[in-house]
């Protein structure tokens, strides 16, 4: 039984590791293909080379939303049990409940500003917000892993 539990724990942690590696590989810039959008005009140029920073922001935003969604659900459904593991798990979930929507909206606004006017300062702003979200994703995944690793 103990070995079986260890195996299941290892599986969960392996998934976290796999995902973290995938995310880390993208944090320095996801591979970009073709297709750019100008949100001001609404024109999509399917032949233009996509901007790596925009693609990274969009993939990170999608991943963040998914991780936040799953983490908040998992925490609410298992709140009492998780409180026995660590009260920090509830605190982390509450942080996302209070700020997650704003973080993702800020990221979207910064991305749209950069797509509309691709200047260096708009790019720096986008990358700074991106770093905040990437940190929140790592924390959420880490707390999910902590819940069974203890």
């Amino acid at each position, binding site marked *: 039984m103990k070995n079986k539990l260890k195996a299941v724990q290892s599986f969960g942690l392996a998934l976290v590791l796999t*995902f973290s590696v995938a995310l880390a590989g993208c944090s320095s810039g996801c591979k970009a*293909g073709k297709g750019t959008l100008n949100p001001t005009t609404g024109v999509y140029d399917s032949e233009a080379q996509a901007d790596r920073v925009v693609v990274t922001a969009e993939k990170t935003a999608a991943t963040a939303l998914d991780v936040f969604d799953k983490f908040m659900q998992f925490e609410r459904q298992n709140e009492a049990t998780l409180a026995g593991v660590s009260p920090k798990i509830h605190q982390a979930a509450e942080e996302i409940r209070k700020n997650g929507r704003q973080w993702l909206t800020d990221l979207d606004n910064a991305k749209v500003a950069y797509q509309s006017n691709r200047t260096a300062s708009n790019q720096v702003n986008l990358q700074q917000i991106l770093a905040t979200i990437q940190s929140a994703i790592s924390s959420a995944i880490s707390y999910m892993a902590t819940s069974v690793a203890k």
Partner: protein
Amino acid sequence: MPALLALLVPLITQLVSIVQNAIANAQKSGELTAAEAQAHRDKIKAVFDADYAQPRPPAT
């Protein structure tokens, strides 16, 4: 021990779903179209409007 086991199944289900979505997400290489970007905004609203996304004090 039973409490730990009760956590494992939902946790692994969620993690598998996250990894599957990340893999599907990685297939797209260009920037999102206006419609796709709007769909993402709609999804943010749906997630954070859900009951489980509303803040509340720790359960006692």
